[in-house]
């Protein structure tokens, strides 16, 4: 929302109404973050002592770098897929104005499902030996696939599962953006001779910039921290092929019980998410209109 700069003091101040929310945030977010930073810097661990030892260890840890690469791979592939497919879906929905009834339910359902349930469905459907997915693949005359069990494809399969779940969400956001675009501008474009793909490229896409950015921010925050579905399906495998930073940190903390080091990895991850949000915030100026 474009806010006018404030020129005078508003008579009524309701700032105090934020206080309860601020208190919750302080107690439930700021304190744990502080504690995690304390752990990350070796607090509570007499072995390493207070310092940057955990972070130095990161730099030399091939597993960390591998997890970082995988995190980015998942983030980029899923984000691009979802934005492209979501925009395409939104354009279709907008064109045919069919967001009602069954279509609406179908569109809303996937991302309202618990990730745990999505993971469970994936386990059952994508099982290489017994799953319905391979049955379909074989019925179509192709060789059965390994799906999540293939170290080369597992990350992409995870990205596809997330895309299945969240593309409709992106589509809805984009649809909201589309429907709020000024209709007159489209009429002006029609008179100016921009139709079909040219209209999409010169008018619709640039106008959707801020909307797509919002969708990208919301999705990247989730994608960089991706956890639930991997945790349920592959637990980071096969090999390290789906060990994202979050999964790696979890393993460090809860399997290897290396809490300080796990905290260090999580701090890096949190900074990464922050960085991506700032990056998109920086883009905002360039795409807003």
């Amino acid at each position, binding site marked *: 929302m474009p806010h006018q700069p404030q020129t005078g003091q508003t008579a*009524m101040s309701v700032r105090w109404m934020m206080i*309860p929310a601020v208190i919750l945030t302080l107690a439930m977010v700021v304190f744990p973050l502080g504690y995690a930073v304390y752990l990350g810097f070796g607090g509570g661990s007499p072995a390493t002592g207070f310092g940057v030892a955990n972070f130095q260890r990161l730099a030399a840890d091939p597993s960390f770098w591998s997890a970082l690469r995988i995190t980015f791979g998942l983030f980029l592939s899923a984000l691009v897929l979802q934005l492209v497919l979501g925009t395409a879906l939104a354009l279709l929905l907008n064109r045919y104005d069919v967001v009602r009834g069954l279509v609406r339910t*179908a569109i809303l359902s996937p991302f309202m499902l618990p990730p745990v349930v999505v993971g469970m469905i994936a386990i059952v459907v994508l099982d290489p030996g017994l799953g319905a997915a391979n049955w379909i693949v074989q019925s179509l005359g192709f060789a059965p696939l390994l799906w999540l069990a293939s170290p080369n494809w597992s990350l992409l399969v995870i990205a596809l599962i997330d895309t299945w779940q969240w593309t409709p969400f992106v589509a809805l956001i984009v649809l909201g953006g589309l429907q709020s675009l000024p209709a007159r501008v489209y009429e002006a474009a029609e008179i100016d001779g921009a139709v079909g793909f040219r209209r999409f490229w010169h008018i619709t896409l640039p106008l959707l910039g801020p*909307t797509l950015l919002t969708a990208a921010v919301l999705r990247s925050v989730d994608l960089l921290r991706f956890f639930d579905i991997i945790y349920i399906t592959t637990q980071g495998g096969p090999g390290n092929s789906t060990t994202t930073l979050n999964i790696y940190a979890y393993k460090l*903390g809860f399997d290897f019980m290396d809490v300080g080091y796990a905290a260090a990895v999580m701090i890096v991850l949190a900074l990464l998410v922050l960085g991506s949000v700032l990056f998109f915030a920086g883009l905002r100026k360039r795409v807003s209109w």
Partner: protein
Amino acid sequence: MDNKQRTLLPTVLFSLGAIIFMSPILWMALSSFKSPLEVTAYPPSLVFEPTLENYEELFGRTEFLHYTWNSFVVAGLSTLLGLVLAIPAAFAISWHRMVWPATVSLFARMAPGTLFLLPWFIMFSNLGLSGSYTALVLAHAVVTMPLALWILLPYFDGMPREVVESGQIDGCRGPTILVRLVLPMIYPGVVVATIMSFVFSWNYFLFALALSGFDTKTAIVASFNFIGEGTTNWGALMAAATVIALPPLVLTFMVQRWLVAGLSFGAVKG
């Protein structure tokens, strides 16, 4: 374009889309009515004699009903708490045209959830709240509050300031204005925020895994037991998944019209 083509193409396209998005969910529901032998049959059977065996296993042999109730309590109360905090905050943020609080509330969503587990556990243990509903509700409010805030802000921003100003002139104070004048105007936003908060709280499993106690375990956490009980009991697993998936799907279905409108997250313009 003649009329037939006009309706045929989108019909085919959207049916295909609906199949892609719905079929895994339907497959889950279908599988939950298969007998243990049938559920792992290959090639999978589409025609079979439905059985309630899996649900009997689920509700009979485990305390799944109790866990489902826990899920309702935690999701319901954390939604309530989230809204009670987010509504006045969103009002204040919108009225004073502040930018930073909404951004800060995003921070809660930036850190990986696993990062919170241990600090929270220690915190709640020291407060004697470990394993209580209170701890779970507070933890889940960290999910619901920012979500509600983000959904509500565009609604507050879209409300004419004159309404509030005329309320002031009529001698009302902030809270009265909020409750009497503003909320009735933005109730579709409140509905969307409520549904989304409830669903996301219901869906969240990590916090409950660490913070729930013997009596407060949620259905989602309990459902993990079906992965890894000797052999994976796919039928019971799918029954549990279906039961867990039901409330979000039913809620979505009930308020779908408003959800579609409310999910733009103020994405409309810069």
